């Protein structure tokens, strides 16, 4: 499926002491919600920080909204004002109160709508105490506050780092709803990129997925395309050895096996007594991550 990119990145390299982010090419489709998926330390936050301009010590080329580069992002207010970013960790100063957090946003962002911010905070049930320190809020309320800030601005793309992690299931559902509402604004010109570990909870809102492992993109595509590309295979113990040659990933127990195969290789399983199923995005992500992970996949205990 062809699409227009709201952010395009090429040859993005960021080196740390024991880790290197090296992405030859990445596209964030315009008008869709994109999930950035990967295990801990895969490079998701680093990539988001680079796209948002939080980190500037990287190599590579970025293109925003088809016409601006990363230098424009830092010098042209038009570009940065169109990017909404919510980061993990110390996004606000630890000593700031809720009032100070609100004041700084009205100072920093021209399009910050204070009335809308208050309204979102109220609807998300954020504590209504201006003098309470943000650092003293629970992780969930802290995230709600950050989300209220980013949704109360006029932006064209949202970059959200682990927005679902500290939220309860009900609030995760609400977040999916908010993302869907945001995408409907401005005739499909808004885009959202969020990193997540909670693939199952966010699957309902994920149109496009980018899977990052060991600092590079190992798989990307629209959810429906990925569901056609991969297939779940289940079979009996007697066929395990033959199926293992075709399967992308496999796990087994005393009774049988279950694994993921590329649909194009399914003919290799002909003659075996197997059942196939369409995978969920969560199952695809786990299989791709498992296939590319440095994590030991055998028995640990």
């Amino acid at each position: 499926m062809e699409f227009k990119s709201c952010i395009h990145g090429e040859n993005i390299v960021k080196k740390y002491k024991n880790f290197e982010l090296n992405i030859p090419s990445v596209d964030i489709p315009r008008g869709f919600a994109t999930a950035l998926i990967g295990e801990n330390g895969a490079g998701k936050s680093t990539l988001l920080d680079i796209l948002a301009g939080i980190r500037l010590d990287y190599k590579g080329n970025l293109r925003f909204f088809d016409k601006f580069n990363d230098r424009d992002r830092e010098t042209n207010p038009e570009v940065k004002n169109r990017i909404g970013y919510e980061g993990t960790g110390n996004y606000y100063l630890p000593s700031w109160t809720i009032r100070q957090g609100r004041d700084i946003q009205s100072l920093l962002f021209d399009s910050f709508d204070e009335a809308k911010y208050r309204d979102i905070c109220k609807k998300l049930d954020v504590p209504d105490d201006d003098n309470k320190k943000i650092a003293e809020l629970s992780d969930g309320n802290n995230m709600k506050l950050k989300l209220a800030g980013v949704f109360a601005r006029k932006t064209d793309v949202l970059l959200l780092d682990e927005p679902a992690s500290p939220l309860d299931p009900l609030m995760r559902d609400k977040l999916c709803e908010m993302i869907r509402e945001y995408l409907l604004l401005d005739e499909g010109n808004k885009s959202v990129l969020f990193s997540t570990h909670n693939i199952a909870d966010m699957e309902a809102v994920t149109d496009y997925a980018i899977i990052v492992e060991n600092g590079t993109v190992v798989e990307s595509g629209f959810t429906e395309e990925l569901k056609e590309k991969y297939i779940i295979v289940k079979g009996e113990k007697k066929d395990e050895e033959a199926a293992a040659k075709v399967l992308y990933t496999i796990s087994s127990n005393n009774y049988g096996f279950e694994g993921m195969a590329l649909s194009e290789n399914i003919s290799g399983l002909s003659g075996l007594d197997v059942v196939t199923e369409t995978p969920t995005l969560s199952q695809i992500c786990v299989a791709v991550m498992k296939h590319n992970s440095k994590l030991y996949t055998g028995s640990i205990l």
Partner: protein
Amino acid sequence: MKDLIKAYTTFSPKLYNILVVLAGTPILALLGLYVGFVSESLMITMIILLCALILVDVYGDFFVFQGIFSKQYEFGILRNSVKGEKILKLALVGDMIKRLLMYFVVLFCGRCFDRCFAG
């Protein structure tokens, strides 16, 4: 000017501004008057007042811009706006002006009383 005041108040806690700026300055000014009254030397008056002001500044540094210089703080929200650097600069200028005014008021009180006493 409006932005400068707003930027400064955003980075400095309300309690700090009430205790140190609004209450601390008159207290230090009174100290200046007292030291000026009991001391026979202008230099001693000024040294004592400067020491008191430095102590207040150390306390102020702890509260204003708290945590901004820590390695963990990556200026997240400030880097997300083209105005981030400007607002931080304004807040720092606001803090400098506040300190200058505090020093001026306190040292002026000490100096005035010393002159009155000497005269």
